[in-house]
């Protein structure tokens, strides 16, 4: 954008409600690239995917018994192998298509650091800018219920808003959207678009997203996991133990992707029991005026009574102190 140009505030956002290919990173990334091309063809400049899209939400945690040691171990192994290592540029194909099509992409992934233990996975929301750069990496702070067996808690280094061509973007994953302090931290950082990828396919999610939008006075873009059991690959390990054999049901993953404006009004969705891409035209200038009545970390706050400190420092398990190279 040339400096003399007035910034445009109207944008088309695309919310993807499609399943990935579980445990297959390369096939899932190809599917993501196809969906991004489709959405960009409709004029979208932000394309958002549901929780753990690469390479699949670990629904198996809720349908197996930890007591069967070998079963979860095998599933976990596949989960780790198909996870994304940012240092290894596993998201190269997504960065490329973002640059080619000039779009911002919000992609939740299972994230592994292969140069560390290579055995721990974070539930991570990656935002890629239209220049192909990774703008932010937010690791879910607290995994929910059985998820805690497969996802480690992240540090808060990604709990921030980032400047994008659409405005200031922040995001929280699934039940993190019920964490008042995490949300406050993003409100205080001036969020105008709030990403809320989820796997929670119940109608209450729509209520939460409306409340979140009204409390943040931000646009909420919430892609939700949706699949039928028949969408899970037939060769999924230990499928016979998981109680869905032969079923074509949506299980508890019925979708509900939704886009909500800063007043709390729904502008697209919720999309239930369907695959598809939800489109909404958003005007990010709306957020400002809506803050006349409420601005939760501003005039509707009481900094004399409440003071929040957020530790966003990166946490590293180990610091190696080595000899200088010339002494080796």
């Amino acid at each position, binding site marked *: 954008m040339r400096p003399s140009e007035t910034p445009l505030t109207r944008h088309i956002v695309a919310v993807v409600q499609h399943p990935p290919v579980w445990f297959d990173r390369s096939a899932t990334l190809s599917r993501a690239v196809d969906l991004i091309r489709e959405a960009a063809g409709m004029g979208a400049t932000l394309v958002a995917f549901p929780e753990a899209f690469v390479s699949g939400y670990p629904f198996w945690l809720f349908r197996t018994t930890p007591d069967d040691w070998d079963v979860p171990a095998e599933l976990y192994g596949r989960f780790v192998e198909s996870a994304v290592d940012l240092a290894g540029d596993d998201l190269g194909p997504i960065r490329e298509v973002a640059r080619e099509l000039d779009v911002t992409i919000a992609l939740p992934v299972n994230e592994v650091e292969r140069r560390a233990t290579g055995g721990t996975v974070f539930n991570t929301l990656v935002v890629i800018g239209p220049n192909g750069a990774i703008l932010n990496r937010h690791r879910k702070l*607290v995994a*929910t219920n059985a998820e805690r067996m497969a996802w480690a808690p992240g540090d808060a280094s990604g709990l921030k808003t980032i400047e994008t061509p659409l405005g200031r973007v922040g995001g929280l994953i699934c039940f993190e959207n019920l964490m008042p302090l995490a949300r406050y931290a993003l409100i205080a950082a001036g969020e105008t678009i709030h990403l809320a990828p989820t796997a929670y396919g119940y109608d209450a999610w729509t209520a939460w997203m409306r409340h979140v939008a009204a*409390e943040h006075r931000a646009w909420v873009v919430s892609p939700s996991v949706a699949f039928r059991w028949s969408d899970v690959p037939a060769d999924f390990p230990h499928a016979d133990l998981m109680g869905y054999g032969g079923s074509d049901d949506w299980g508890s993953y019925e979708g509900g992707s939704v886009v909500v404006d800063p007043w709390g009004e729904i502008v697209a969705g919720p999309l239930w029991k369907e695959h598809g891409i939800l489109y909404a035209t958003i005007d990010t200038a709306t957020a400002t005026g809506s803050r006349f009545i409420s601005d939760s970390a501003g005039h509707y706050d009481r900094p004399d*009574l409440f003071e*929040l*400190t957020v*530790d966003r420092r990166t946490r590293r398990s180990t610091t190696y102190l080595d000899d200088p190279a010339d002494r080796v």
Partner: protein
Amino acid sequence: MPASAFRVAAVQSALRYEGRDAAVERVCERIAEAARTGARLIVFPEAIVPGYPAWIWHLRPNLDGSAIAGLYAELLDQGVTIPSPATERICKAAGEAGVYVVVGMTERNAEASNASLYNSILYVDPSGQIMGKHRKLVPTGPERMVWAQGDGSTLKVYDSSVGRLGGLICYENLMPLARYALYAWGIQIYVAPTAARGELWLATLRHIAMEGRVFVIGCGFVERRSDIPTRYAFKNDYQPTMDEWIDDGDSAIIDPEGSILAGPLHQAEGILYADIDPAQMTSSKWIFDAAGHYARPDVFRLEVRTAEHPLLVVDDGVDGPGVADVPG
């Protein structure tokens, strides 16, 4: 926490502009009625004594200034001092019925200038004693022209025989840090007296119920055009786009899983009842506990200042600041 199920009530009153004493009498009648129906906790709407100053949303300070000054003087005159004969009347009704009562009122600042007002809720126990009060921390929009801001000393959760009891008033419920403080103090029954209504407000109530894993008692009032006395000049052009129902009420009682137990009661005066299963106060925390296993105290440090901030501290040079005020 009580061992067995118990009944709570939300009284959806009408805004009648009848003055303090008439409003108190109606409150006492509804206390007796709801108690006869078995309620052990009875909640009334925001500022129902003497009545919510709805005109502040309508009149223009410059063009309607003299009318507003007169209305403000009337509100002051009809405001409630705590304690006073008006609160004693409510305490007596609660004591006779043997119930907990929460009543919204416009409170006069008798401890200082006696010419300013707070938006308060009064808590009374089944023995007829005042448990405490909460002064709204931040009034909303034009409310700021009639109500002052409460300090942190009235942000509390009370022990009661039906569970830990507390709440916030209307848009205070969009203050993440205030809610978090209540969760951290172990709130189990969350009252939300309000002037808000509609689907979005219901979404907020459901969100809070699931965020706090609390029972939420949302209690609003109805306002009918025909109830506005003709002596008020503003009646003539008040809310011209609305017919008889200017405020719809929409009180509702929600359980910790976000399910609606009663209401929303739309465009009607009446009492909503719900039977609360106390087991849900704990079982629902398995999935989520905002100020417990789903918090990140290593990341977030919230400081809450609950000190009282008197408008005047007297130092007479003899016994040190303030001691002259200590009774006895």
